[in-house]
């Protein structure tokens, strides 16, 4: 088992390297750089930029050097906690992002747990009551969840939260807790604000998961061992709990790889609309102003989160399912 985990972690390294190369290429692609747009913006306002400082920054971040050198400089910095410099905020990236990374992780984790808690019973109900009114109803609600764009759902929920609860739900905590150290009150405030984004982001993921769980469980329920168990007179509930459900559990854990990118994507869009203190709003601003290291670090972080999530689910699956081959190597 230890060997499998080590092998799995080692396999992550080339993936992450390729991702970093891709991300770096993308943020390098726009013509010009932050300084050019910054200087021209200042000129347009009739001001003069501090050229000396800009030259200093340019030299420090090697803008005179070829792209490959800069890439390795950037990636090398990761290992010592240096993610580059945010030109817009005039601060190292690691200081700018602050709590945002943790809040993103927190939001994604809570959303996944929410998705599981909701999708599991619904999926089982839909599979065991195939073609019943309950099944159709739940499937329909789930499809609506897939079809309504996240940002519209966010706006509408914001509106209704305003009317019904009289609270403004923009943000992930009350204003006075921003930039405050972690305290009990702050956590409570986060919990109070969290449920709306979780609900919005979770809907689409839940619907997809219910659909896959239902299909999976239906396949399992048609297998011969279930027929045998029924023929022996076992009660349907016992049959369900004893075998097919356990099989479906495995699927449940491995499905994380497919819902995690969707959840993170949805979280970004929702965060921008609701102006949550996660990576979303800052990422889009950084992309628009060509604040390349900030944008690049965010993209890298989101990809890392996904890769890590898949790793955790793979390891959990290996622990749960004895049939997973531990020898390593891709299975064909």
């Amino acid at each position, binding site marked *: 088992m230890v060997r499998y985990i080590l092998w799995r972690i080692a396999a992550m390294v*080339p*993936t992450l390297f*390729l*991702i970093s190369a*891709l*991300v770096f290429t*993308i*943020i390098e*692609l*726009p*013509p010009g750089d932050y300084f050019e747009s910054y200087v021209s913006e200042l000129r347009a306002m009739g001001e003069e930029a501090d050229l000396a400082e800009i030259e200093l920054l340019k030299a420090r971040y090697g803008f005179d050097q070829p792209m490959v050198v800069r890439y390795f400089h950037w990636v090398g910095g990761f290992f010592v906690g240096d993610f580059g410099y945010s030109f817009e905020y005039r601060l190292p990236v690691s200081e700018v992002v602050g709590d945002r990374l943790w809040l993103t992780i927190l939001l994604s984790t809570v959303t996944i747990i929410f998705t599981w808690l909701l999708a599991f019973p619904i999926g089982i109900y839909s599979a065991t009551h195939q073609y019943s009114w309950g099944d159709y109803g739940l499937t329909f609600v789930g*499809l*609506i969840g*897939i*079809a*309504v*764009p*996240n*940002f*519209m759902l966010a*706006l*509408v929920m*914001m*509106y209704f939260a*305003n009317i019904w609860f009289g609270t403004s739900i923009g943000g992930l905590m009350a204003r006075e807790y921003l930039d405050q150290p972690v305290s009990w009150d702050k956590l409570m405030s986060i919990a109070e604000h969290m449920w709306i984004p979780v609900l919005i982001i979770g809907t689409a993921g839940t619907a997809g998961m219910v659909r896959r769980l239902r299909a999976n469980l239906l396949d399992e329920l048609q297998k011969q061992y279930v027929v045998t168990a*029924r023929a*022996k*007179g*076992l*009660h*349907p509930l016992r049959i369900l709990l*004893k075998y097919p459900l*356990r099989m479906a559990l495995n699927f449940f854990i491995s499905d994380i790889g497919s819902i995690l*990118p*969707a959840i*993170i*994507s*949805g979280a*970004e*869009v929702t965060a*921008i609309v609701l102006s949550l203190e996660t990576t979303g709003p800052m*990422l*889009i601003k950084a*992309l*628009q102003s*060509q604040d390349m290291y900030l*944008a690049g670090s*965010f*993209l890298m972080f*989101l*990809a890392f989160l*996904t*890769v890590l999530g*898949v790793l955790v689910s793979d390891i959990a699956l290996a622990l749960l399912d004895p049939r997973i081959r531990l020898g390593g190597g*891709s299975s*064909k």
Partner: protein
Amino acid sequence: MTTPREPATQDHPPLEHSASTAPFDPYAADRLATDQGTAQATPGQIMWWRFRRHRLAFASGIFLCAIYASILICEVLAPYSLNRRNTDYIYAPPQAVHVIRDGQLVWPYTYGREMTLDMENLRRIYRDDTDDVQPLRFFCRGDPYEFWNLIPADLHLICPAKGGELFLLGTDRLGRDVLSRMIYGARISLTIGILGVSMSFALGIIIGGLAGYHGGTFDLLVQRVIEVLQSIPSIPLWMALAAIIPVTWSPILVFIGITVILGMLDWTGLARAVRSKLLALREEDYVLAAKLMGAGSGRIIRRHLIPGFMSHLIASATLTIPGMILGETALSFLGIGLRPPITSWGILLTEARSVNIIALYPWLMAPVIPVILVILAFNFLGDGLRDAADPYK
């Protein structure tokens, strides 16, 4: 988890068993097939029959055909032209169409409206003037337009009465008719899905096909690239690529750029499906037979392998279109997708960007309805196609 086996009768009664006593006829199925003509049916026919059985999928298919046909003639369908502004009716709410007047069924009509300014809340208030009856006109002359940017014309399916106005879904902040803009928006939103999918389809078949058929280093490389692309969440990646598009590009170039971005990143799922199917199919006997008869790999892929999983692929491709339409909508809504004067549903939804607007002018959210309907329809259609794609199951 292990419980000792116990007699089932204790807490639950045993399930009922039943067996038919009728004599068993092993040839019944053959005879039935010959009677119904299914014995000689081609795979295509069987797929079609199976697809027809899916009522919802079939209805969705018809709906999508209709809505795609409508984008060919949206100039005629829309009551107004795309950029027609009516400064007297800014933020006018939707108008109702009445068919009953004084207890009698009459030609559909609307009421004329009077606008007053509420100076206290700084709002425009529109009130129906029940004396001013404006009967609708059909197949009538209205705003001039150039059909497909070629032929000047002014025929519309539906127009307001002469001198009146008709805003079935209200107007926006410039006094433009929301319904007309929604009908025009379909053109862009729906083509983006189709163009993007055609691109990812071609990429998926070529890359996945080569990887699956030849294997080796290329296969390993492709697998890695797919893994990398799939582990970056799609919307942030789209955002990053959309941000690259220079501000100086014309809206048409931006449209092409966004389509390419959506298509370029979506092929991974299809390539994976093609690859795994090819790996399974190339071991089949008929492939070996073709090889022995001297067929080249190109011919084997085209003639023998692709037909084997094409139907399956089309079904999966159908299921990826909604993601693209939603992606375009989200990007445009966030302000980094398409730009006006190109009009898509996402662009229209940017009008409904804040909670205040939703509270005051909820009809600006109307473009979300076609988005939802189209996405639902593609989902149903894709599910139906997928079930039909494997007719021997």
